[in-house]
């Protein structure tokens, strides 16, 4: 199958997935709760019956299920879902916070690369040595440690005891700096928010404005959450790189390269290029995982991102915000996975399915 057909098929399955995502969201919002109106107005607290009546009408609880579904569908797709606590559109609140979550995920990614790539290579080249065991241990540690406990341990160590980091809040540049100001967000909400927001990520915005003190501040606050995210999945990625590099080193083209008398480093370079292919996929999926896992990291480290918004929505039983947040998280996650899949097919000519 050619690359074009692969892409066409992959994107064709993307659309039913999104429709399915909306249907599942509908089930969560309308069908599963025993008393959905109650849930939408804020759970079990005593509520004004007039408000219940209004919500029942406004969110079409008195309509048949297909009308409810199309209502939710249009609301989600056009981003009209309104958050009753703040009185703002959910997608606007989430859109404002999304760049901060991306910044956190980028810091996590940076530390993940710093930790996993050298360790993975070292573990493969020095198989069955202390380095190899250390990598194995780190992988076990990362998959066994409850993330929130690790975050508190790091805060205890670096904030309370050593006092070498800052917590909570995100430094923002003093004026909005964007590379390109576009109207895209209003036309295609999801794609627009994803696409034209690079300048809205506070650190990049500050870089574009040349406010280097803000960049410095950002590093002082974000290195600890980034390190925490990197530690949690660093061992896992390093293990995958180790295994794939070992496979590559045992293959025939490496034998051939050695037989031709290439230097050690040249041989490793050849092997590493091929070994990186599965690692790139895993890294991409990890990035999606960081965006989704931000809900815990942002809660603990006090970062006002998308996850924090969902957390606040949960604690206030702000149901439209939970629904909108769930939907947007799914969209982001699916899109990241789609990009990873496409990248994988592009960089590895052997994969065409």
């Amino acid at each position, binding site marked *: 199958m050619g690359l074009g057909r692969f892409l066409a098929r992959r994107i064709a399955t993307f659309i039913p997935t999104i429709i399915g995502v909306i249907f*599942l969201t509908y089930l969560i919002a309308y069908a599963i709760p025993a008393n959905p109106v109650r*849930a939408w107005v804020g759970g079990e607290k005593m509520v004004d019956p007039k408000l219940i009546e209004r919500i029942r009408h406004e969110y079409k609880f008195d309509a048949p299920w297909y009308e409810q579904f199309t209502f939710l569908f249009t609301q989600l797709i056009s981003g009209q879902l309104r958050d009753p606590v703040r009185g703002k559109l959910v997608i606007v609140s989430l859109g404002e916070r999304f760049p901060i979550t991306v910044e956190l995920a980028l810091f996590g990614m940076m530390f993940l690369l710093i930790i996993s790539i050298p360790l993975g290579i070292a573990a493969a080249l020095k198989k069955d040595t202390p380095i190899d065991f250390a990598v194995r241990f780190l992988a076990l540690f990362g998959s066994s440690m409850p993330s929130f406990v690790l975050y508190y341990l790091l805060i205890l160590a670096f904030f309370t005891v050593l006092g070498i980091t800052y917590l909570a809040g995100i430094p923002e540049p003093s004026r909005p700096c964007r590379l390109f100001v576009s109207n895209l967000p209003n036309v295609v909400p999801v794609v627009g928010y994803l696409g034209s927001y690079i300048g809205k990520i506070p650190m990049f915005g500050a870089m574009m404005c040349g406010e280097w003190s803000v960049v410095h501040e950002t590093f002082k606050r974000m290195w600890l959450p980034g390190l925490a995210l990197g530690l949690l999945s660093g061992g896992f990625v390093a293990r995958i790189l180790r295994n794939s590099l070992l496979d590559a080193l045992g293959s025939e083209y490496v034998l051939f390269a050695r037989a031709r008398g290439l230097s050690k480093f040249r041989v490793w370079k050849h092997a590493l290029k091929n070994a990186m292919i599965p690692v790139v996929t895993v890294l991409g999926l990890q990035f999606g*995982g960081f965006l989704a896992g931000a809900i815990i990291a942002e809660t603990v480290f006090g970062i006002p991102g998308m996850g924090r918004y969902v957390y606040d929505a949960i*604690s206030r039983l702000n149901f439209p915000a939970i629904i909108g947040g769930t939907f947007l998280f799914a969209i982001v996650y699916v899109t990241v996975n789609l990009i990873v899949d496409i990248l994988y097919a592009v960089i590895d000519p052997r994969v065409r399915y």
Partner: protein
Amino acid sequence: MMAEVIYRGFCIIIDTIAKLMDKIRPGWSDRNSSRISEWKLMAYAYSRSAIGIVGGVLVSIFVIIGIIGPYIAFERYNEFPASVNPDLYFLRPCIPPWCDPWSENLPLLGTDNWGRDILSLVLHGARISLVISLIVVALGVPLGIILGLLAGYFGGAVDEVMMRITDVFIAFPALILAIAFATVLPSRFREVLYTNVFTREFFLSLFALSKEEIPQLASLLAVIFALVLVWWPGYARIIRGSVLSVKEQAFVEAARSLGLSTWRVLFRHILPNVLSPVIVMVTFDLGTATLLAAALSFLGIGPQDPVPELGFLVSKGREYFPDKWWIVMFPGIALFIIALGWNLLGDSLRDVLDPKTRRSLEFKVKGKKQRKFKSVKRK
């Protein structure tokens, strides 16, 4: 030495099973002698892996504590000593090398904001975590396996529809989908628990909770079912993949041409051949489910006060963090040890259940000394 004892123990168990099977079906052990020797080889491989033994020990301790924990905890979770004696607020932990809990009359792991003993809470929390992880895996995995079997075996439209549904579930990040389900499910479960006495008593005794905690129990069940709904798609995908390759093999063709029913072919011939990666995955997932359930409670979705769910204890302790660090740390360490145990066990089971590593081990052993993995000779 230790390894030898463990190996001998497993051998005794395997021989007993063989003898029992012989009683039920005469001649069973002769017909299955190769299987028995394979089991013994597995036992040998397991007994030689240090991480497997450590994991096994951790898991057994956790399971034992999970069973007896609520009964050996010296304080009930719903007693609040600080309301009687205010001196019991936030007592510091008193861990033996640095401090003697008996002579100073201090609690081993400290107390929380209500003067409850953290050790008792953790012992009870272990039960809750154990039950959650077991139910999630016991419901989610078979569901995934059955759907994966059907999709892989029947193919065509069934396959396409099921895989699209699976895609939808996988499209959500697991934590987010579990959050969404767990926020909406409690209302349903509360209805069931208030009306159905049997279900209520069953789950209350399963979690060792008292009657006042019915709303909390509903949230606990919501967490469990949210995780089940998140859990099955992974298994459905993996099983479908293996079924696709197994069903083309000759023995399936033979079974079908002998006129066996579809169910028999599916469950007697295909299922056993796709199950071995699942066993390893289940072991890892018992740890992951524990952590994910704790993460949900940490975010305030699971049970609330006074239920001592480990994740919820951590989230309560964070109000007093870092001054009163022990409220966060000890439940957290308990969670870490539980997950570590399952992960270590899974890591070694992956090697033990892999026929390739097992074979290489057999050759290595045979080279050293003549050890035969044979079943008992019976005449």
